[in-house]
């Protein structure tokens, strides 16, 4: 077996050294009653070529091929990924390294993470960002728990119903065994979260909004910050499409205290939903409550700049059950990938690309309205929006699928009052031709 170097002779030599006569001798501390007494039920070993055939078969089972245009977002976004990124990120020094416990031989990972933290802080408008969480959904759950830790006596948090339903589901999971209460905030007609009745008497440790929210609607973050702070709560801003911050104001600059969300858009493929990247940042004063790993700058014995994992007192190895979180492995290589993507785009590029996403989505939005669809919400949106169709959209969707376009996510499964409502996503990968085809098919 090509991954197992030992020859029979090697094994005999080692048996002799150890003083056993067979493998059984190595496992004598495992009681008979614990033993696996049959063969594990697995298919016989495949050669590399058989494995290739197997994966080709898997591929042939997919009705949606890589050639399809996908006008569905809802948490995962198809963006162009430059070929430089997989070329570099597959370098074995990066991909086959472990967590940088020995900083002197991991300065690549560490400087890369430090740069990621910095670019992320700039993107989100926060003072400090950590070195990643699992994904946007678990990041929101951790943000709310952090809000509880900071809020001390308060036992309640509020989350907008316009936050991605899966994010809210994960929050529910994390909160289930705790004593804390989650209150959902309604969505107003225009697609923004209704904060009108918020008050300090609610006793919310934190209030979480998503912007752009699940419907693609850009929340009025500045007003929200005022309202939430007036209610003596922390403002947690979530997101699933960070590219928006190339065009719209960053959550931090609008007053959010904790900002968290999903970074998949930043150079990471959709990959059936993972691996993605939980991005997480906050104001300086909350840094000791921040979950997840942090890289800090320091000096070596000769005064030279270098980077290390730091503030590990917040982590499990030292404080164990008093840790800010149990997160340990995070999304390492995805973090570096996102940083490389942000560096490749640059400040000039991200503004241009975000505007292009916005323009293209507006084009489809206008076209669908012309074709007879009704906008569900009239607040401004970024690269996603929801429309209601008068007649059944499913046959149109099917016909488009056959033309190589997967368009629209049915919202009826997610919200009670949204039958025949569909969420569309348009990124820079969708050509005008594709958008025109959708419009034409709807018009029919």
């Amino acid at each position, binding site marked *: 077996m090509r991954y197992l170097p030992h020859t029979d002779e090697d094994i005999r030599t080692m048996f002799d050294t150890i003083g056993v006569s067979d493998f059984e001798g190595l496992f004598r501390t495992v009681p008979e009653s614990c033993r696996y007494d049959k063969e594990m039920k697995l298919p016989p070993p495949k050669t590399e070529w058989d494995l290739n055939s197997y994966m080709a078969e898997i591929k042939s089972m997919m009705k949606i091929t890589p050639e399809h245009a996908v006008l569905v977002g809802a948490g995962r976004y198809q963006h*162009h990924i430059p070929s430089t990124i997989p070329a570099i990120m597959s370098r074995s020094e990066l991909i086959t390294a472990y967590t940088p416990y020995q900083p002197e031989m991991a300065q690549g990972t560490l400087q890369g993470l430090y740069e990621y933290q910095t670019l992320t802080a700039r993107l989100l408008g926060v003072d400090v960002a950590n070195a990643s969480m699992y994904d946007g959904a678990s990041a929101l759950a951790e943000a709310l728990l952090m809000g509880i830790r900071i809020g001390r006596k308060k036992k309640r948090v509020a989350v907008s119903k316009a936050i991605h339903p899966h994010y809210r589901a994960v929050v529910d999971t994390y909160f289930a065994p705790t004593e804390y209460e989650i209150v959902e905030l309604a969505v107003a007609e225009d697609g923004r979260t209704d904060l009108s009745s918020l008050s300090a008497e609610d006793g919310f440790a934190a209030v979480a909004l998503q912007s752009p929210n699940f419907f693609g609607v850009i929340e009025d973050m500045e007003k929200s910050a005022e309202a939430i702070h007036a209610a003596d709560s922390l403002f947690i801003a979530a997101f699933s499409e960070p590219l928006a911050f190339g065009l719209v104001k960053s959550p931090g600059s609008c007053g959010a205290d904790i900002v968290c969300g999903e970074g998949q858009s930043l150079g990471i493929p959709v990959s059936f939903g993972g691996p993605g990247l939980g991005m997480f940042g906050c104001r300086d004063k909350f840094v000791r409550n921040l979950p997840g790993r942090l890289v800090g700058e320091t000096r070596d014995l000769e005064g030279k700049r270098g980077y290390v994992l730091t503030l590990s007192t917040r982590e499990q190895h030292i404080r164990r059950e008093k840790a800010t979180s149990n997160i340990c492995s995070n999304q390492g290589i995805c973090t570096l990938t996102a940083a490389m993507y942000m560096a490749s785009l640059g400040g000039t590029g*991200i503004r241009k690309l975000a505007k292009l996403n916005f323009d293209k989505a507006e084009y489809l939005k206008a076209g669908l309205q012309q074709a007879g669809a009704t906008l569900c919400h009239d607040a401004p949106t970024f690269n996603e929006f929801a429309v209601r169709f008068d007649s059944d959209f499913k046959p149109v969707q099917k016909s488009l699928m056959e033309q190589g376009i997967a368009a629209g996510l049915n919202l009826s499964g997610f919200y009670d009052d949204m039958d025949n409502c569909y969420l569309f996503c348009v990124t820079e990968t969708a050509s005008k031709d594709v958008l025109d085809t959708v419009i034409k098919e709807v018009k029919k």
Partner: protein
Amino acid sequence: MEEPLLWEKGRPGRNGMSIPDSDVPDAQLAADLCGEGPDFPDLSEVDVVRHYTRLSQWNFGVDTGMYPLGSCTMKYNPKINEKHAASEGITSAHPMLDDEYCQGTLRIIYELQNYLAAITGLDAVSVQPAAGAHGELAGMLIFAAYHKSRGKKRNKILIPDTAHGTNPASAALCGYKPVSIKSGPRGILDVDQVRELMDEECAGIMITNPNTLGLFEENIREIAQIVHEKGGLVYGDGANMNAVMGIVDMKKCGVDVLHLNLHKTFSTPHGGGGPGSGPVCVVEELAGFLPSPRVVFDGEQYRLEDERPESIGRMHCFHGNYGVLVRALCYILTMGAENLKKATQYAVLNACYIKVKLKNHLHLAYDRPCMHEAVFSDKKQQEYKVTTLDIAKRLMDSGYHPPTIYFPLVVHGAIMIEPTETESLEELDTFIEVVKEIVAEAKSDAELLKNAPQRFKVKRLDETQAARQPCLCG
């Protein structure tokens, strides 16, 4: 070669990737929503490529050499698995489309669930948790949901001092107060102690087996019985599964819930800290509690099953770190049962070989038959004022990644060596010789160790300063 930080490079107006020209009219966003955009440096493609190429050259990976980081199972990461995970059929699959469009990607999850069940001996699996600690959390949520379903909230949990570090934090997230159990003189759990501590306030026990001393918890069945008798559950931390594939049946051990680390036992790359993947495996009785959705197969179609009233719910926005699942499935299909068992046998063989060869040179904490790793310490070097840290740093200069150090906490100055099965006898012998030389140097020239490492971009880094005056953002 030096390489500045990203924002110390670049000139406004450069760009490092293609941005398509617009083929649609300009649209207008309300001015009060518009921002300035982030202050990112503008770089050319060659700037970016060189930056990260240089960064990579300051790193050490499994392809560079032996990486005997105990408890981390740094085995070789096969290239073919990377290729399949990166294939367009996988990377372009969108998770929000109807099941009928995703039969291939769902099948991968379904088969992996089954194979992990077969390997552990347990009955049902969810691959949603995104890392080991996430899997532990899923396990603890299952504990909580189980007890709740039986109408009893429990508030404590037993955790041995040889457990993995994240166990107490995971339990605490679910409202359990960890009760520490000291391991016995043989480095493993003492049945009587468990009997004494286990009561009906206790949700159960979290056992790492083999434990972090590399020793098999020989009494696990009796312990499980005690826990079960008091209505508790047994959690198995499967991070060390590499030591027992095909040898140990977790169900027969009495384990009810177990997480695996695909980025350890199943050869997926660690990526400098992730993405990992921490599937959670349970006995039949607990299957209903697993995270949602689950992938099921009705004989014709793979489906995502979401209506599962007992489930702890969703742990991840989608299906966890899917790309990692693809790699692990490829590994299992390549290895098959016979080679997975061999992997375990060779991993243990390699650790035992190192243990025997080094035990006269480094102090061996527990001189007992070890499994996949051996825990030494710096006890013999104390007289020269040489510490575990010094030995570790000196190893770097010889081209090795140091072992895990100062863990487990039960061994003072621990040096925890896990070679894994993919290291050949020649590599082991070379490593052993290097350690012996360092041990000799500790006696003859301790300064050499104190000043190590010398061969890297930076000399020994000041971690204390980093924590005292945090500089986390440039």
